[in-house]
């Protein structure tokens, strides 16, 4: 009896003990939508699948672009870039990586039916030069091509074909895509099992081409939607890394043994869009007072951002005057200046603009998207009221909020922008400041149009000289800064929490890259 027990124990040891030593248990607020990296633009799904799949070029832990599946690249013609592919890379299923995989994957991601096509705008063709060389042909010069490519993962062409998944997933066909539940990449980890909304298990890819900086053998990812439960799971030792960790729980986590907060300023800048159309959505005056620059200045004077930082953000946010974080290309210190908090000046400006009694407008905010979004808006509404405005606060779940933003059914509204995956100020320019036209101006507030800014945007899009491009970028962003086209709020802090034994880099883009993580037991 004892003998057999010992035997069982001995047999099970090699199976469990070493593996348990380097297992990382990771909890996030929600699960991935699916495993197809071309099916959604969601940044969490994107970084999760990055553990399985890889792009041609990738960001390192400091967000610098480095070679991944391509070893080097050359600009052959202004709109044609040649990529030399890494030799000897194999997919998890054993298939060799070659030019066909790149062609199929890029084409699949840029397909008109693919939701990801906006992340690779202007792709005309991908041409095979030889088995390990491809040319990427764009509509015109594309200075940000490599930035785009960090986000486009490579799938195996044979595997896609064998499973009827070469075309992007099309929900309207009523069939489930094979790639939603199965993964076969070249990445640092392989998918072992997946139970949606319960547990995703990844194991280290022994045959990875790169030298692992991590020492993990296994990742167990559990989505835990309730923030309190997530923190409890960390405190009770069931989880090693949680992301995000609520700011207000930081003190409790720091005080607990064996766990700590991981905090850094993030890339995501929070800002308030301002309706500059001909009328307010929900106002009580003729016309639209928000078109008057003095009124927008009064708004900035009215809001005490430092107080919001100290109280609501617990000192963790970075108050900004700029629409992009300092890490993002195009940032200059000049655009970071804010009009000071000065309620009297605010009232004076308001009176000067002809609204001494103020005026009513909607203040629209999501309540489940950004860090403490609802609380920030409530505080802002209070401050605006105290300076003579009459904001009507509307806080809603993100689905409804962003639908309204899309329809321009908002007066002053909250939006956060991290310039992902480009990490370039052009992202703000093209999506949030340019006059709406084609792929430009998706989020530009109603009625905002600055001809000089539009002109610069067109030029920047095709300028291959980096120095000139950055100069124009800063000029354009400065114009927006002076116009107060958006009211900057702050840079949202990154807030994760982990066991003391876990080392993980926290890049400013708030994405968890576990191929740099170490567990020291």
């Amino acid at each position, binding site marked *: 009896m004892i003998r057999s027990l010992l035997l069982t124990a001995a047999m099970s040891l090699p199976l469990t003990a070493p593996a348990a030593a380097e297992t990382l248990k990771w909890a996030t607020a929600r699960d991935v939508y699916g495993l197809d990296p071309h099916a959604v633009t969601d940044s969490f799904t994107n970084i999760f699948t990055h553990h399985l799949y890889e792009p041609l070029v990738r960001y390192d832990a400091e967000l610098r672009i480095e070679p991944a599946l391509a070893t080097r690249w050359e600009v052959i013609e202004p709109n044609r870039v040649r990529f030399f592919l890494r030799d000897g890379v194999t997919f998890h299923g054993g298939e060799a990586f070659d030019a066909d995989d790149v062609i199929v994957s890029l084409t699949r991601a840029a397909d008109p039916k693919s939701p990801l096509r906006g992340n690779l705008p202007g792709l005309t063709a991908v041409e095979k030069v030889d088995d390990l060389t491809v040319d990427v042909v764009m509509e015109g010069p594309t200075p940000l091509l490599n930035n785009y490519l960090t986000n486009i993962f490579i799938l195996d062409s044979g595997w896609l074909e064998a499973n009827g998944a070469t075309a992007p997933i099309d929900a309207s066909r009523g069939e489930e895509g094979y790639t939603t539940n199965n993964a076969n990449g070249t990445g640092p980890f392989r998918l072992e099992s997946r139970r949606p909304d319960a547990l995703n298990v990844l194991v280290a890819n022994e045959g990875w081409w790169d030298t692992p900086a991590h020492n993990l053998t296994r990742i167990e990812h559990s989505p835990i939607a309730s923030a309190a439960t997530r923190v*409890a799971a960390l405190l009770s030792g069931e989880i090693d890394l949680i992301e995000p960790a609520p700011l207000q729980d930081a003190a409790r986590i720091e005080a607990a043994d064996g766990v700590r907060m991981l905090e850094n300023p993030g890339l995501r800048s929070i800002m308030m869009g301002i309706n500059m159309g001909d009328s307010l959505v929900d106002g009580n005056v003729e016309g639209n007072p928000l078109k008057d620059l003095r009124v927008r200045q009064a708004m900035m004077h009215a809001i005490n951002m430092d107080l919001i930082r100290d109280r609501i953000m617990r000192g963790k946010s970075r108050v900004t005057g700029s629409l992009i974080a300092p890490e993002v290309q195009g940032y200059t210190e000049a655009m970071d200046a804010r009009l000071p908090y000065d309620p009297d000046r605010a009232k004076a400006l308001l009176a000067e603009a002809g609204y001494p009694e103020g005026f009513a407008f909607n203040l629209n905010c999501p309540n489940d998207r950004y860090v403490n979004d609802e609380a920030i808006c409530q505080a802002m509404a209070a401050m605006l009221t105290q300076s003579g405005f009459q904001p009507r606060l509307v806080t809603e779940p993100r689905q409804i909020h962003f639908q309204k933003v899309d329809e321009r059914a908002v007066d002053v509204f909250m939006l956060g922008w991290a310039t992902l995956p480009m990490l370039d100020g052009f992202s703000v320019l093209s999506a949030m400041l340019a006059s709406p036209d084609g792929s430009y101006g998706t989020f530009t507030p109603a009625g905002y149009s600055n001809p000089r800014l539009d002109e610069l945007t067109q030029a920047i899009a095709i300028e291959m000289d980096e120095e000139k491009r950055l100069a124009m970028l800063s000029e354009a962003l400065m114009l927006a800064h002076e116009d107060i086209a958006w009211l900057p709020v702050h840079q949202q802090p990154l807030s994760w929490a982990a066991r003391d034994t876990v080392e993980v880099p926290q890049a400013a883009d708030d994405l968890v890259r576990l191929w740099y993580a170490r567990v020291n037991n």
Partner: protein
Amino acid sequence: MFGFLVRRIVQSVFVMLAVALIAFMMFRFMGDPVNSMVSENASVAEREEVRARLGLDQPLYVQYARFVTRAAQGDFGLSWRNARPVSTLLAERFPATAELVLVAAGLSLVLGIPLGILTALRPRALSTQTLQFISLVGISLPTFVTGILLILTFSVWLGWLPSFGRGTVVDVGWWSTGFLTTTGLKALILPSVMLCLFQLTLIMRLVRAEMMEVLRTDYIKFARARGLSDRAIHFHHALRNTLIPVITIFGLQLGGLIAFAIITETVFQWPGMGALFIQAVSFGDVPVMAAYLVLVSLIFVTINTIVDLLYVVLDPRLRVDGARGAH
């Protein structure tokens, strides 16, 4: 009996058709599915093509008929959130909810009936009064607060039980069960305690009330006069008469447990249908919401029918009319 069965089934079919109509109407109220399927810069022609492929160009009654026909075959289309078949999503989540609800229901019976008897036999005792008071306090707090308090106490403070999830589950065919592993069983404790509190109190109070009533009847007085022991009277005669209403209420309450599991599953990240439903609500994922509604109604209707049948079997004196309005 047979006639009753047929009548109940016909009734149930009508109920299900009505539920299906509500579910179908949700699609009409909650935006155009075409918008969530095509890219925002799709042309009008593309939209029309998708619309035709989904059958949205047909008259409403045709669409409804199609919806019912497909729903009857378990086909609810694809989730708008992640393009997976809704039937698969529900099948994945069903075992988690079923096991949670069964354990909670079991707990409420196993604890509720003895406590009910105890309090009925000693109505004036201090322990009875205290128990009743505590049970009332327990259900006067919103369940989500109770859940977090349980986690704080048993996971964070004492470190005895897991705070989230199902532990290790084992697949038996398509059914994933947590009953076969230690972690799975441990993970069941806190959520099922949270879920059963309400039912437990209800059953305890119901058993108490029924028991006290029965104990007063001539039948029991007669048994006492015959010199039967207290024990025999209480457990053999009185309890048996108490159980019929308990079964009715219990059956109806199973439905309540499934619905309340929504909150439990949210607090404990229990990967069941309730969590899926709440996710669908916040995402506006109508196919999932509709399917959940239809499935849960089907479960309710089935349970109700069984309870009615059981009732008739247990107490043939009752005619159909009285079957449901037992009290």
